[in-house]
């Protein structure tokens, strides 16, 4: 194998297909460059299922190692990121089955998927400035609300609304139908709104007072 030249070094300059070809040709140390743009997605997908930082990091690493092991089975007509997320979802689900065999799902997860979901709260929630996300407490509360969802809703919501996968990609990564993705996504969004709107209605930016110890939700 020829030594790489300095000009080859900023591997992000190479496109994904070229990187893939080089990895398949034996330049294994370039595999990380292939994965790097998606490492946060891998972590987020695993965390959506496991909700535990230590397990998530381990599973995310295992998923990437597995992707490397099976790289020759990757079909180039599929998006590499979706394939990687699919492996991550499988790894995380396996870990969860082993570790949490008897875990009770949160209440919000027991909804009947086929039935209709009616909003429970009609608190007015006005337009909100995204600056609120600069507050760690706000992000923490959003994360807590997400953790309240049942796993099947959280998985769909994280892939679709947080990672911006398409409906079809989400369905593929989770091994479910597009109709299920849409149904679960609707419920996930409505449940999160129900969880967040009552506390945030009308006072998102001006009335938050975490610093004073008063929690608005």
């Amino acid at each position: 194998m020829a030594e790489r030249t300095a000009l080859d070094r900023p591997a992000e300059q190479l496109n994904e297909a070229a990187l893939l070809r080089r990895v398949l040709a034996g330049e294994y140390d370039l595999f990380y460059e292939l994965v790097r743009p998606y490492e946060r997605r891998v972590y987020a997908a695993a965390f959506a299922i496991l909700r535990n930082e230590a397990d998530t990091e381990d599973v995310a690493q295992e998923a990437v190692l597995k992707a490397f092991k099976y790289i020759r089975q990757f079909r180039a007509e599929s998006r590499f990121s979706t394939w990687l997320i699919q492996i991550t979802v499988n790894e995380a689900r396996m870990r969860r089955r082993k570790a949490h065999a008897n875990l009770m799902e949160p209440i919000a997860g027991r909804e009947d998927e086929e039935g209709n979901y009616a909003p429970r709260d009609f608190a007015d929630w006005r337009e909100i400035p995204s600056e609120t996300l600069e507050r760690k407490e706000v992000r923490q509360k959003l994360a807590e609300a997400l953790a309240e969802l049942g796993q099947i809703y959280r998985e769909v919501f994280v892939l679709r609304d947080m990672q911006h996968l398409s409906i079809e990609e989400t369905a593929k990564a989770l091994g479910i139908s597009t109709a299920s993705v849409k149904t679960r996504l609707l419920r996930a969004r409505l449940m999160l709104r129900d969880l967040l709107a009552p506390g945030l209605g009308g006072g998102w930016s001006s009335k938050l007072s975490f610093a004073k110890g008063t929690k608005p939700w």
Partner: protein
Amino acid sequence: MVVSCEQVWREVSNYIDGEVDPALRVAIEEHIRGCRQCAAVLTGTRNVVELYGDERMLEVPFGFGQRLHRRLDESMPHPRRSFLGWMAAAAAAVLVAGSFEIVRSLHSRSPQPRSELAQRGKGIPPDLKVVATEEGRLFHVPGCEFIHDKTKLRAMTAAEAERQGYAPCPRCLKQYLVAEEGSPPKGVSS
């Protein structure tokens, strides 16, 4: 067409994603104008999508990337090098380190993506008028409902936005997102 509150709740998610036909869209909008509760449901649901869709919600622990890289490195098959091979590698490393800054400056005109996660667009008309915020990562069609901060918008062409590393909004410009084709991989599931 007249729709009930229940129909609005059933379709609110598809409505936000632009997945309802024009007649139903008009009917939902008509309903919402006269129904405060459904208006609250729509606004709140849209806020949920907007807030969680922000990259700041995808936090990873500090050092995650390095640890991942290290673990990957440890499990990679590495060919054994001879002494001369090591010397050559060390010399190459010095050269690489020395020229790295030069290489960086050579490439500095390439757009650095503002978002690692957003999908790239394809076939966007270069002179399409779009807007973006200085701190944002996406560019939008003017009037898009998913613009985070409407007070700091800068107008530009799509070509300019892409040059500056912005990615297309997955909502208002979704027809230009690079579509995926093909089947899922086989043999990697549990």
